[in-house]
């Protein structure tokens, strides 16, 4: 497997990851599902980007496409470009793809209960990745796997055990060990703590953050939990109906929220200052993914919607170098959302 080494470009551009105008559709027998509709995304070295949105917004489809893991059929990448360290993922051969997966980009999946192979020891599962990407033999790979287990806080002796012998939180640690075994430059975490106990969540998040710093990895954190975003991310992209509707630094998104949908997400959090107040969920249901929206998909749930919102896809508008908002309401220079203006 040594031939996998060094066949990818290694010169480091400014961004470890660039997504340009990416669109992905699922063609099923019943309908076409427009999962991702022309998104742009850039990830700087060693930063953590939070990808936020409701279930069905296209977050997982987006990141699976980075590894070319969107199930095909039914998934079709209908347009766009994905550059990982300057390599165009769509143009990679099978061999190059295998060299990239796990080495350039690694992924931690949502459910640790099902993401490990039940009939392989955890040590073998970590070592498998090492053997594919590093020029080492079986024994040495296993030793490195044991070391990796210790890095995630599990005794190396347990490498000979099987997944069913570990608890959920421990399995997620094993998943992290597999993902980080070859020191990838990008780590994707797809709701890594959703399936875990609240008490374990904090531990796992801290572990991921520490290891990310230790290995100098860039990270994409998919979540619908704004609390996790606040704790782990440097930048945030908010997705709705396959589009990134607002993007910016953590501070911009949290303190200078601009998109009505982002505001809705914040409003639906419990209010810690006034515990008796009711939650304010976003009214209506998530948009229908089988519709190819040629207007703002959020318009029918948006409290600020005007006629214009139904006529065209909103343009991208930059309020700072980093802060992008896709909302037609800002055509009116006087417009502002209620959040941050409650008292003034």
């Amino acid at each position, binding site marked *: 497997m040594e031939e996998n080494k060094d066949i990818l470009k290694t010169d480091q551009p400014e961004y470890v990851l660039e997504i340009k105008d990416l669109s992905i559709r699922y063609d099923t027998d019943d309908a076409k599902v427009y999962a991702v509709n022309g998104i742009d995304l850039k990830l700087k070295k060693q930063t953590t980007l939070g990808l936020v949105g409701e279930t069905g917004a296209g977050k997982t489809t987006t990141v699976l496409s980075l590894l070319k*893991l969107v199930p095909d059929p039914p998934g079709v990448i209908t347009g766009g470009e994905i550059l990982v360290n300057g390599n165009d993922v769509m143009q990679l051969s099978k061999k190059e793809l295998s*060299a990239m*997966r796990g080495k350039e980009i690694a992924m931690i999946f949502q459910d640790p209960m099902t*993401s490990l*192979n*039940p009939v392989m020891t955890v040590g073998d599962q970590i070592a*498998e*990745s090492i053997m*594919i990407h590093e020029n080492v033999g079986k024994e040495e790979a296993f030793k490195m796997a044991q070391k990796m287990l210790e890095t995630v806080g599990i005794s190396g002796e347990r490498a000979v055990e*099987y997944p069913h012998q570990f608890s959920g939180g421990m399995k997620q640690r094993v998943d992290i060990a597999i993902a980080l075994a070859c020191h990838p430059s990008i780590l994707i975490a797809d709701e890594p703590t959703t399936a875990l106990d609240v008490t374990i969540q904090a531990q796992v998040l801290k572990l991921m953050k520490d290891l990310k710093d230790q290995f100098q990895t860039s990270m994409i954190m998919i979540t619908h939990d704004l609390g996790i975003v606040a704790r782990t991310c440097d930048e945030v992209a908010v997705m709705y109906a396959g589009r990134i509707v607002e993007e910016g630094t953590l501070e911009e998104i949290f303190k200078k929220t601009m998109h009505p949908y982002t505001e809705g997400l914040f409003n639906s959090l419990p209010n810690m200052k006034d515990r008796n107040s009711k939650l304010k969920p976003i009214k209506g249901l998530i948009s229908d993914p089988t519709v190819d929206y040629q207007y703002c998909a959020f318009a029918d749930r948006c409290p600020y919607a005007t006629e214009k919102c139904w006529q065209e896809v909103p343009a991208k508008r930059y309020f700072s170098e980093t802060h992008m908002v896709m909302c037609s309401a800002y055509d009116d220079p006087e417009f502002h959302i209620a959040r941050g203006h409650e008292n003034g």
Partner: protein
Amino acid sequence: MWKYVLKRILFLIPIMLLSSFIVFYLMSLTGDPAQAKLGEDATEEQLEMLREQMGLNDPLIVRYGRYIGNVVFHGDLGKDIWDKSVFDEYMARLPYTIYLACVSMFLTALISVPLGIIAAVRQNKWEDFTLSALAIAGMSIPNFWLGLLLMIKFALQLSWLPTSGAENGILSLILPAFCTAVPNAALITRMTRSSMLDCIRADYLRTARAKGVKEGRIVLKHALGNAIIPILTSMSNQFAILIGGSVVVETVFAWPGVGSLIINAVKAKNTNMVTGGIIMTTVFVAIILLLVDLLYAFLDPRIKAQYQGK
């Protein structure tokens, strides 16, 4: 682990007692062994004398007790109506049956597992549809008819293979083994397909792909490693049935196995032979199923953990 094995072996005892009693009882309903032995011309006195001599006038439960006592304490399955040792007769035929069963199972595995994998990997493509049609055909074609067709083609017309008997070693075995393998292979192809499909959609395959594991290893190591367990269960059941003797195929090809021994004994009202044969078959089937259960422990660590009570 050994505790589990011991438990399973002890569990054999009630199974043996129950199945032998059922056979013994059923055979007692089928007619008079004394009559079978002496033939139509025997007088009533001769018959009565022989019945007394064979202990046939005792109540059923006494006869069964005497019989099973001999089996358990002397390892003696008794003598058949021609005064030949049932055990010796059975053991003389058993190698042929084992031989046929092993070759047949080998063919089954060789044909069906790769085809099942192909059908799963190429789900809803022409390969899958073709294999499904073949599998349905394989399951529906009667064994004896397929046997006769193959015999006409390969033995009579082409003269490549002997028509029947066991005198030509492996050549004699090809047709009967193939005939018994066809329906089994058809079933296992379908099972492999569905079992593989369950695994192909599993999350851990996505994890493996995300590590950069190549597609061949994904299918053969990660998917098949998990899919093999239910496949093995079905194959072991099929093997157990084959050890009991494939009556139809053995008859068509005049294969001197256990199946034809027992069916001939039934026709001749050779009570002891039938009972003894079935008891022996039960023992072998139980042993095979036990071995397969133990094999699981090596294939699936979760089952091993159960055995160890962890």
